[in-house]
């Protein structure tokens, strides 16, 4: 028996060929074709009356995200008032992808106008050449510049005589502590530790087994050691600087993190877990937010090392501080207190988002004007991503004279930026990986650091 399909095929072969009929399209298919053609044309046509602002976007940041979006929209509206003939298109990007996107797009000939960038990566941007010098666009007087130049991050923005980014604010880190836990173990909550030794002593007292099951319930000190660049920036670098070392040498353009100070820093960190047993092993995995922010708010750690200024809002939301976000003259600490990381001065890591102009922009002057609108100090205070003020005059306002904000001010003033290497991420990755190997596999600190330093220098020394 013939298969029905086979019969149909034979019938098609044997039948006389019918006259070719025109394919009939349904009305909606014309509409689809029209929309597709129109959208294709609009994609290929450069929009000469619209400025593009590429900014970071973190939809998972909860209320902070909403505030950031509100700030962007407000600033765009303010700019439209100044230049009603120019529209602004917003391009969103993840915080750790925005710089690479900017560079890759530059190589591919895709233009942006104003972009947010990371100061740690400005040296890489400088080598790639995707950002232009802002000095001629801003045309500032010396007094205007001194408003920003007090911030140690200012040096990071200036490379080879060019100003590649304008800091939106300042982000720095301090130590946060739980005052209630201090009281419970007989420590004075108004006297936080001032040296590394005191920090360890306090942390030992604060590390406790609350239910008597032989397991630690509260860890004295939370320090992040996870597989990300935060380990290098927040945990390792302050200690490296404290012991007198540096991760990268500007003159020889070589990594130097395996120096004596680097070894001391790693040994101090390792001792926190294995010798003093004040830091949990789970600090080796997860994210920086998990290990420091959430663990502190969930009372799993009593002191958190590397508490960022971007988390002031979280403390306020939890009711652990009051009147600090937004800053008021009544700002006070309740359950949580903060203190400067007890390392030597100039050992805090400082950064912030910076605003830059893309090299392929067709509108450099208008981009410069837009940056000035974005930097409006009163409105910047409403953006959590911007962080603490970067303009010195803002710090002189009464709401920033409270003890809480004076600690932050001191931390910024005495802080340090990351080394200006074009291979910063590789450097941070090398150190974080070395640190994890030492912590997890218990390999000797000196040889492991040297091995990773040599690997880095083999590839990138001299840049």
């Amino acid at each position, binding site marked *: 028996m013939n298969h029905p399909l086979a019969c149909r095929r034979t019938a098609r072969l*044997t039948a006389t060929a019918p006259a070719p009929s025109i394919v009939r399209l349904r009305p909606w298919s014309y509409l689809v074709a029209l929309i597709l053609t129109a959208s294709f044309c609009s994609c290929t046509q450069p929009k000469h009356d619209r400025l593009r602002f590429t900014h970071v976007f973190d939809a998972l940041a909860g209320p902070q995200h909403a505030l950031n979006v509100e700030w962007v929209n407000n600033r765009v509206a303010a700019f439209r008032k100044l230049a009603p003939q120019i529209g602004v298109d917003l391009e969103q990007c993840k915080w750790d992808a925005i710089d690479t996107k900017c560079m*890759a797009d530059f190589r591919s000939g895709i233009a942006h106008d104003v972009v947010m960038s990371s100061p740690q990566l400005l040296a890489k941007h400088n*080598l790639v050449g995707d950002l232009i010098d802002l000095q001629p666009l801003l045309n500032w007087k010396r007094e205007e510049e001194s408003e920003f130049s007090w911030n140690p991050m200012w040096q990071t923005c200036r490379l080879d005589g060019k100003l590649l980014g304008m800091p939106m604010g300042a982000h720095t880190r301090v130590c946060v502590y739980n005052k209630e836990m201090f009281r419970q173990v007989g420590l004075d909550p108004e006297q936080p530790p001032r040296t590394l030794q005191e920090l360890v002593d306090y942390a030992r007292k604060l590390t406790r087994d609350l239910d008597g099951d032989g397991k630690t319930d509260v860890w004295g000190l939370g320090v992040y050691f*996870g*597989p*990300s660049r935060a380990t290098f920036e927040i945990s390792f670098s302050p200690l490296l600087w404290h012991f007198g070392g540096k991760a990268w040498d500007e003159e020889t353009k070589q990594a130097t993190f395996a120096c004596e100070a680097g070894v001391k820093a790693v040994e101090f960190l390792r001792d926190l877990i294995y010798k003093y047993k004040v830091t949990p092993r789970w600090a*080796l*995995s997860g994210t920086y937010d998990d290990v420091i922010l959430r663990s502190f708010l969930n009372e799993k750690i009593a002191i958190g090392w590397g508490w960022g200024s971007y988390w002031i809002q979280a403390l306020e939301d939890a009711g652990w501080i009051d009147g600090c976000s937004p800053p008021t003259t009544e700002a006070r600490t309740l359950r949580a207190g903060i203190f400067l990381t007890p390392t030597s001065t100039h050992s805090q890591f400082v950064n912030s988002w910076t605003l830059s102009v893309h090299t392929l922009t067709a509108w450099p002057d208008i981009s410069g004007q837009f940056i000035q609108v974005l930097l409006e100090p009163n409105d910047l205070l409403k953006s959590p991503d911007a962080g603490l003020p970067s303009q010195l005059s803002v710090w002189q306002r009464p709401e920033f004279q409270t003890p809480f904000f004076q600690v932050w001010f001191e931390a910024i003033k005495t802080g340090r930026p990351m080394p200006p290497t074009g291979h910063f991420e590789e450097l941070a990755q090398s150190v974080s990986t070395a640190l994890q190997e030492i912590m*997890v596999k218990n390999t000797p600190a000196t040889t492991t650091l040297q091995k990773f330093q040599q690997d880095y220098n083999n590839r990138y020394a001299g840049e």
Partner: protein
Amino acid sequence: MPKRSYSNTAMVRSLRGSEPIAYAFLAPTLLLIAFFLISPMLSGLFMSFNKTSLSGLTRFVGLRNYQFLLSEERFLSNLQLSLLYVVCNLGISLPLAYVSASLLTRKMRGTVFFRSIFLLPWIVAPVVSSLLFRSMVDPAFGPLGMLLEKITGQQHVMLAEPFWAMATIIFHSIWRSLPFMTLFLAAGMAMIPREFYEAAKVDGAGPWKQFCTLTLPLTKIHLLIVLLTITLWTLQDAETVYALTEGGPGYSTEVMALRLFKESFINFDLNRGATLGILLLLVGLAFMISYARITAKEQD
């Protein structure tokens, strides 16, 4: 209607004259394939022979990128981990997929329901499922972490220990691959006539014998496709590994695909990324050829 039939030779003869037209019709497709499939591969190959500085200067370096990687301890570890990832994923999920496929092809109550929910792990976005797994192995409140603690009597920070971190990645991959493998193999098994099994039973063949002599040979083509697909997916999997461990602790879970991602999109070294891509392609090809050979040999 009278039936007229063409003999094969007559058909071939009549088609021979229209060969140029046939090629003309094929030309757009061939051009598209050349443009979208072959040209990126050639471009990647070309990139792997070059070195571009951050300032954009490109120079030809021959095989130096390959030499660098092949002499590097880290790359050898990346390669080993990639192979381990593929072998463990397939080694565990394939037998399980056959078992679950045989259950799904039986006429039992609830089979339709199970067939639908079986696809759930496959539908969930890999990054989302990775985050779910990360919370499951959390040392403080993750059920898997707590279970492991109950079994071993020690608290394990699973993602901070090289063995458990890799085990988590593999387990996650098995969880994702199993539904796809099961459904594909079940489709193959459903095509085997029941009479074959009945005849085998009459001949005294037990379940294992039936599987070896009937199920396995008759689902060979499905098995080959499943093996190829899952192997290539596993080899190219950077997103779940990144979301789970970022390659840590140290480099202990950094597979080749993740290294490629890091070099290209974090370190912005597209040449080294392209070199890794070519090497990954070669590993994939090696798997493809060996699967095809094994299947062809068994068919002979």
